[in-house]
């Protein structure tokens, strides 16, 4: 054994360190890209409307919300036209919910792969989030003219949009990682996730603005990082009200913590996937 040991890998009973796993995932990142491509191709194969489906869902949902909450209930929106307000919130929400939902099933749906070949499994839930990004970009193409029609112009504060978007990706990835791994072990999870998402939507300012939340609830509600993310994104586009500082002081650290926790959970469970799935 006089050769350097650098290319010797030890397969033991203990999982590799989360950092080593991260490095391995990074080396195989093009695999996640291929999974995203696969999903995109599969989704629009043999469909008539193709990519239009990506924005039709948030559009129709926003229209229904505009009718119910905008016209009938008359939810105040700090002067923003309700449809633009809701379309924007719904697009962000659907990114989160879609990524988490798809991510939850990502390992179970690829059972045969997980059981038969080794690859950094995190590529699967990561691809779910990537798919959400692709959908959101398509939605944006349609959202921009809608906003322009409502008189929203380009402004420097829109740079914050990138920050909000990055936080959204971080949060979704963290939740998708944990949910995908736990679903392999506990088949309750795939049932639990849609229910939680439904409740979480009403705990997030999707159909209403944060400003109508009573003051005694607001600090608690802000523990939900989606509140900060959506408020920051809305502020960057519409510029109504004050800069939501709590997005950076509360939502940002929580989102990062969720990603770290999600990664740790995933790494801890990853090695036993093939035995449990």
């Amino acid at each position, binding site marked *: 054994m006089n050769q350097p040991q650098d290319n010797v890998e030890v*397969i033991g009973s203990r999982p590799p360190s989360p950092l080593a796993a991260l490095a391995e995932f990074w080396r195989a990142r093009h695999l996640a890209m291929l999974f995203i491509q696969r999903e995109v191709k599969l989704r629009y194969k043999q469909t008539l409307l193709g990519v239009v489906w990506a924005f039709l869902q948030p559009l129709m949902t926003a229209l229904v919300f505009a009718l119910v909450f905008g016209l009938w209930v008359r939810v105040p929106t700090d002067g923003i036209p309700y449809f633009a307000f809701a379309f924007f919130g719904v697009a962000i929400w659907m990114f989160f919910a879609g990524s988490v939902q798809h991510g939850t099933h990502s390992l179970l749906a690829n059972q045969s792969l997980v059981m038969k070949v080794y690859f950094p499994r995190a590529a699967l839930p990561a691809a779910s989030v990537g798919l959400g990004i692709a959908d959101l970009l398509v939605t944006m193409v349609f959202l921009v003219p809608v906003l322009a029609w409502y008189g929203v112009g380009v402004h420097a504060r829109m740079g914050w949009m990138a920050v909000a978007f990055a936080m959204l990706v971080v949060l979704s990835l963290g939740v998708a990682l944990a949910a995908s791994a736990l679903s392999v072990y506990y088949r*309750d999870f795939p049932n639990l996730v849609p229910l939680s998402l439904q409740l979480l939507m009403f705990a997030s300012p999707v159909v209403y603005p944060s400003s109508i939340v009573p003051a005694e609830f607001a600090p608690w509600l802000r523990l939900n990082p989606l509140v900060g993310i959506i408020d920051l994104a809305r502020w960057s586009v519409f510029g109504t009200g004050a800069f939501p500082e709590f997005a950076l002081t509360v939502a940002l650290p929580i989102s990062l913590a969720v990603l770290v926790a999600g990664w740790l959970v995933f790494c801890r469970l990853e090695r036993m996937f093939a035995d449990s799935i």
Partner: protein
Amino acid sequence: MNAAVTFAGVSKVYRGFGGLAGGDRTIKEALSAWLGTERADAAEQANEFRALDDVSFEIAEGEAFGLIGHNGAGKSTLLKILAKITAPSSGEVRVRGRVGSLLEVGTGFHPELTGRENVYLAGAIQGMSLVQVRARFEEIVAFSEIERFLDMPVKRYSSGMYTRLAFSVAAHMDPDVLLVDEALAVGDVQFQRKCLARMRHLVAGSRTVVLVSHNPYSIASLCQRAAWLDHGRLKSVGEAGNVLAGYLDSIKSHRMNHSWTGDEGDDALRLRSTYVRFAEDDGPRTDRPICIGFRAELRQPIRNLVAAVELASDQGTLLAYSAHDDALSPPAEEHSPGEFSWELTIPPNTLAAGVYMLNFDFGVHNERRIIDRAGGLMFELANPAGIGRRFPAEKWHGVLRPAWAWRRTGR
């Protein structure tokens, strides 16, 4: 000599709530186990299954290494650990370089994607970088012989085309340690030859190859060293010939049996018994007819039912395959429910002296396999007086001892 792979005290234990898999728990079960409300210890101990038990050995760099053992001996668990698909429960494995596996054809293939798209996806899943796939793309396609259909979804491929492309991707991974399950030599005979040649090519280059096979003969011809696993334990390891000799002896002493009774099959068909019968007073010998038969129960009417017998040498080499309707015309017939039995006769002076294995297959023609290699039998033929007694040992002069007619045609 450097070790490419080192197994050091590797064990793998599966614990189950009922089944062998550790998962599938609901949160309720997990909570009650965690709170200690469920006295699961004793039950879990009973449910424990040791797939591998303290296995240690080394595989040298550039060596072709064979793994042999009965079904359930732990061969596939061992490969899965080596391929990082599952983790050992204790002990560790050290591997030098990248491991690639040829354990399943078509891993990563998706029916809706085209052949081209699948090559890239499957290549990436099996650990190739984008650059590597691109560099080998032409080679992979040429090997698979499906150039014309590259841009067609693979769901429209024939199963032959599909396996050829899938094998092609796997065969061009170029890892430092290649894991092969021999069941993989797929496709038609010509392509099988290509696959074997490819394996030999890898073995000949200084590649480390780990070969799992049910056929001791192919391990003997490809591998320098081998390990024999038995019920999760390492029974022996060393020079391939020695290990195989031990393994074959154990088969002979344990499994020489002339009849089988059991209950195998599905809702439509149950196989109840099989037998091999010899001329009564003489025992099994080459110059007497050999009768092979089975009894089965049909529970639903089946059209085009096919019963077949597979005759193999003690080395596992397939010698003959005979279906009950081979000589019937027309072959298609409806079988009605109830018990039925068939028997075939091998004429005298067909097989040489030696040990033979029989297995029974049942299926619906061109549709599905109902029973795959069940009712296994084993028998040994002696050649006290018959044809070919001059050369009785099967391994020197072939497996057949036919009574072919000779006549003098010249001085």
